[in-house]
């Protein structure tokens, strides 16, 4: 497979995943912020932090936006702001641009679904839905991404291109889960004695951000504690948004891309690194120890960044702007 095409596949997967994750994060945070007990700032600031946008957001809108305004500002910044590379509109445009340049490898149905989502988001229809029915706006984005994921699985050959797309999706998702758990965990640990009801509400909200509420309740009966939630999102091997699942599946995808019995193919360093991360995460899961969660999550985020940079170097072989982003 052409290296440049593989890279576009990989980034198509990443941007698609990022779009869905951001839409879900906004949807859940909006619900959370409607609970009277919580300060809007406490709900919305973590969103900006998870997306790595805190410095730019603060620089643009100041550090002391009034509580009643911060939500609207964050939502606008994360939805329609084209100057924000992490916004939904930027992610959809980037996903579509990558899809357009690999138009010959994805199926017509996938392309149409991507293109329709892109055209809809740029239309007045989407803006009026954003204004008048924000929940359904986010829902439609999520469903658009889910439709595309399903079409990828059901309308394409399960060979190299799809494996690169999945690899991108899985690494992006693993990294997203790590960041969102870290931010929540950090925020909650700082507050010494939070009211139990509020604390539970926050943990439940974290689960919903990862669409993990129902799966979590099937694994854990009883009280919702921070440790149980974190443990689930990090280690549950059968939950498709857990870090353990994402890293392990990414490893499996990589073995298709570079079979273990063909050591002459490019990608050796990435293979070593990804394998090590997979083992490290599953060891942690086996121990079941809470340990230093912040340290663990930071390690996962850093390692995924290193792996993405390695992919760019060893398999994609170019220095595009996307490769630069992955290096950062």
């Amino acid at each position, binding site marked *: 497979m052409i290296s440049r095409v593989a890279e576009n596949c990989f980034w198509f997967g990443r941007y698609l995943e990022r779009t869905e994750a951001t839409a879900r994060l906004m949807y859940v945070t909006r619900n959370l912020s409607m609970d009277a007990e919580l300060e809007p700032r406490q709900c919305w600031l973590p969103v900006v932090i998870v997306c790595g946008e805190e410095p730019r957001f603060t620089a643009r809108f100041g550090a002391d936006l009034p509580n009643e305004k911060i939500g609207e500002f964050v939502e606008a910044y994360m939805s329609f702001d084209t100057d924000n590379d992490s916004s939904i509109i930027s992610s959809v445009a980037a996903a579509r641009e990558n899809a*357009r340049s690999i138009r*010959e490898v994805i199926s017509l149905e996938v392309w149409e679904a991507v293109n329709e989502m892109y055209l809809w988001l740029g239309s007045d229809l989407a803006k009026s839905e954003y204004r008048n029915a924000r929940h359904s706006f986010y829902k439609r984005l999520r469903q658009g991404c889910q439709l595309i994921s399903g079409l990828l699985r059901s309308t394409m050959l399960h060979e190299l291109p799809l494996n*690169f797309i999945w690899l991108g999706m899985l690494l992006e998702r693993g990294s997203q889960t790590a960041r969102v758990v870290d931010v929540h965990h950090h925020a909650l640990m700082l507050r010494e004695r939070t009211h139990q009801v509020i604390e539970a509400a926050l943990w439940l909200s974290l689960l919903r951000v990862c669409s993990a509420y129902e799966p979590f309740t099937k694994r854990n009966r009883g009280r919702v504690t921070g440790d149980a939630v974190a443990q689930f999102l990090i280690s549950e091997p059968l939950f498709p948004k857990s870090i353990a699942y994402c890293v392990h599946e990414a490893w499996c995808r990589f073995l298709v891309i570079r079979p273990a019995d063909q050591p002459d193919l490019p990608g050796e360093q990435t293979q070593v690194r990804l394998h090590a991360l997979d083992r490290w995460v599953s060891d942690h899961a086996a121990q079941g120890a809470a340990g230093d969660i912040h340290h663990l999550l930071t390690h996962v985020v850093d390692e995924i960044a290193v792996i993405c940079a390695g992919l760019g170097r060893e398999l994609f*072989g170019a220095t595009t702007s996307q490769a630069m982003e992955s290096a950062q």
Partner: protein
Amino acid sequence: MPRAGFQRVLTELGASTADEFAKCQALAEMAMMNQGVTFSVYADNRGTEKVFPFDLVPRIVAARDWVALERGLAQRVVALGHFLDDVYGPQKILRDGIIPRELVLGAQQYLPLIHGVKPAGGVRVHISGIDLIRDPEGAFRVLEDNVRTPSGVSYVMENRLATKRIFPRLFEQASVHRVDHYPSQLGETLRSVSPRDPDQSTVVVLTPGSYNSAYFEHSFLARQMGIELVEAPDLFVDDDRVFMRTTRGPKQVDVIYRRTDEAFLDPEVFRPDSMLGVPGLMRAWAKGTVTLANAPGNGVADDKAIYPFVPDMITYYLGETPLLGQVPTYVCLRDSDRDYVLDHLSELVVKAVDESGGNGMLMGPQASKAQIEEFRQRIIADPRKYIAQPRIELSTCPTWDGENRCMEPRRVDLRPYVLTSRDGPWVLPGGLTRVALVHGSYVVNSSQGGGSKDTWVQKEVA
């Protein structure tokens, strides 16, 4: 008056109300937008895409007309191939004085450095698009040859999909030749000229990239043929062989269907200052390790000043009578022609020989005094660069006028596509009908208010 045999189609279409038709037209356009059947607009901000304007009313070509046309097109393309082999070889046609030597060797697209190169596979014009018009007597005439990188064939297939979806019954009744096998024919054509075993060969489409105006078509063809779409940086030359960079290391490439301009093929040869292209590609091609479709240097054959001599080429190389007429043309390099042109500028259409897309043109009958003066000076300064033709009335087709919500006659031309494999030419039974959507206009180019129609070539009744 509609041509005989089309009455039924017109009656059927006429049965729908303006509202119904407007709705169909809107549906077709939306489908194309959603599917990304678009072209990028140059000189606009990056990423602006437009649907190639499409008119739902099909243009119909009768079986009898088509059979004659098909033979004429094949004849013409074969002769152009011979001409190129000759010009880049023994140059007999110049020695025999059939075409003025200075006209050929002075053409901007003539490439002296490939003189003596015999391309692998033996074909130079693998893909051609011959632009035709229909004169007031109903005869098709050649207006222009395109033997470099003719585009538009993807719209032939997309337009067909749209009309089939919207007029299924009408289409069935009309007994129309299919066009959707073009990509597989193209694939076979390309494989047939590979330097290696066709079944083991790697064929790729080379595109300038996703910001090129015809990118949709490049990816469309690659997709339909199931082959890789590459950009120049994906390729490199080692030991005079071409490879592509893949995730599993280098892979040799045998045939390149290149949709990039010649000037951006190989910086070692064409533009030393340019970073674009694949260094060494021309060396590999000259050695015969890779086939380029179309071959470099073809531009000398579709130069507008060479065009008047194509009938002579047909007689010279094939010993046959030319089957297709063309448009009388004055070559400004000839003194007598030039004097006539300068005296009759306000009646003639003047064209720069190396421009396309309706650029560099003077439409004498509609031009202002200043424009005519400007062209007079240009012709005097560089006569080789210009030809002139009388303005030919184009035939018209019923076309949907969205503003006035009614059918109106609009001027059309036709670009059929000819593929030439190792075994000879094949004509796609169909083609791109371009239509001047603006009332009164003669310009069918998409960049200047033109659109396209599906072309229905009727099958012969057995």
